[in-house]
């Protein structure tokens, strides 16, 4: 196993339903994500990529196989321990940013600090992150006062604020034009390289593949690493 591996999936399968109505959404998945690398998992709707993300993030259990985050086997953890693990080890960036509408940008981070009292970014590091994401001037604004792109960057900053080693992103470029896709792709690549994060993006957007260190294709619950996919 790669010593810098943050996430490891070994022979992971996920089955929904019972008996005749059983559907195997993931089949014998082997996958590793290491620090400093951007992993792009591309697949069409219904291919199992979202299920893979929820299992990798400890939100769902695998039916078979082993999922390890930072060396810890999720199957051996209680729901509460998995909550704590997500809080410290994983930053989720979701398709809809879901910032709390009644908190300013600054208060979105204060909220994180409320339930995670240790190992947050220092105020200097947060300021530098906000500068890096170009949202430092927006700290007193409410989500409704921000553009979609600005909201996304706040959501990214919120995910990074607890300084987790693993970033899981779900369709971060849905409904963005090509120029914005490039910006987001570069941003995620920088996060992986400069902040030494293991970044996993699940998407059906082929335009992101140029930024990936590892490109995977998922189809019918099976995953395979590929060099390039046709746009």
């Amino acid at each position: 196993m790669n010593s810098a591996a943050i996430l490891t999936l070994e022979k992971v399968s996920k089955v929904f339903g019972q008996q005749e109505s059983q559907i195997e959404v993931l089949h014998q998945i082997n996958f590793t994500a290491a620090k400093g690398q951007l992993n792009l998992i591309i697949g069409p709707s219904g291919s199992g990529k979202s299920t893979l993300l929820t299992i990798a993030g400890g939100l769902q259990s695998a039916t078979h196989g082993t999922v390890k985050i930072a060396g810890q086997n999720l199957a051996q953890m209680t729901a509460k321990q998995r909550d704590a693990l997500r809080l410290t080890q994983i930053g989720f960036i979701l398709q809809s940013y879901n910032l709390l509408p009644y908190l300013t940008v600054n208060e979105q981070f204060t909220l994180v600090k409320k339930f995670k009292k240790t190992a947050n970014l220092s105020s200097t590091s947060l300021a530098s992150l906000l500068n890096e994401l170009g949202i430092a001037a927006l700290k007193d604004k409410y989500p409704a006062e921000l553009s979609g792109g600005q909201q996304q960057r706040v959501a990214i900053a919120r995910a990074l604020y607890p300084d987790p080693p693993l970033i899981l992103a779900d369709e971060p470029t849905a409904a963005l034009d090509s120029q914005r896709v490039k910006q987001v792709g570069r941003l995620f690549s920088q996060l992986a390289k400069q902040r030494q994060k293991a970044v996993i993006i699940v998407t059906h957007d082929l335009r992101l593949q140029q930024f990936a260190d590892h490109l995977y294709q998922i189809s019918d619950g099976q995953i395979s690493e590929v060099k390039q996919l046709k746009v």
Partner: protein
Amino acid sequence: MFLAFKEIRHEKLRYGLIISMIVLIAYLVFILTSLAQGLAEENTAAIQTWNGQRIVLNQNADINLSQSLITKKASQQQKITQQEAYLGQAAVVAKKAGHAKISAQFIGIKNHQFIAKNLNLTQGKLPQTPQQIVVDQSFKDQGYHLNDQLQLNSQTAPFKIVGFTKNAKLNIAPVIYGQLTAWKKLKNLTGDFQASAIISKKASYQATAKGLTAYPISKFISELPGYAAQNATFSLMIGFLMVIALIVIAVFLYILTIQKARNYAVLRAQGVPAGFLIKATLAQAGLLVIVGICLAGVLTGLTAWLTPANVPMSFQPAVLGSLAAGLVVTAMLGALIPIWTIIKIDPVSVIGG
């Protein structure tokens, strides 16, 4: 508390409306309670000042003071010590030229017995003759003064006010204290009758004479005409308002939680414990109801200040305080449904949307 406070501050109109509902409900609860308390006091205030434990009435009087008569013969068979006092009751109408008529309760007592001795006079002295009376303070509020002469029922001989006393109300009517001999005249009784009742300070006092029965004062009070029905009606209204408060808070918090479910699911996905969100919801319910109750308290205080003295309302901070605590508990119960919604939130629902 952080989330609760920030959300309320940001959504001022929405939460303002919820708080105004709580204010109205709490204010109504406080006012109804004060009214119930006031009416109850006006039913029983005089009885409370007698400090009796037992009352002896004619057994055929159906525990009703106005229906009870005790004969001299029967009274002689009862042991009367310093712990017992005779009491004669008659419904009267007090009249004086230039003044409105006042329906009152005449209570005949003996000056050497404990009821007369314990009478809390705010002015004047005890009646020394059958034509002298001590009246409730409310007579003063209606323009009566010491030494005023007034007529009771159709009695031609006038009665002179020689004193005023407070908390002298019985069956929501002011009490006129006089001598037992005057009571006999007012009731047109012969010399065969002694009183309407015997009040005893002893909890073990028994009726030994044939035709008499002793009752605990609490039983006597609960049997006062209309008293129990009135209290039950108020209790029902107050209880119903509490239930309405619970439903209003539960419905509002439930709708608000449903609206925030996706945001909460994201927070849950990030590892925020459900307990943190539950605490926020409880804090929100608590904040709403406490602010609502405080405002209702201010309104109630203003009402108490502006209410004329003759309105039968009694504002008792201890009683209103416990009702306020009850409303807070109600709000917490109302928060249980949204809490259940939070517990059931599935963070998976926000992935792959």
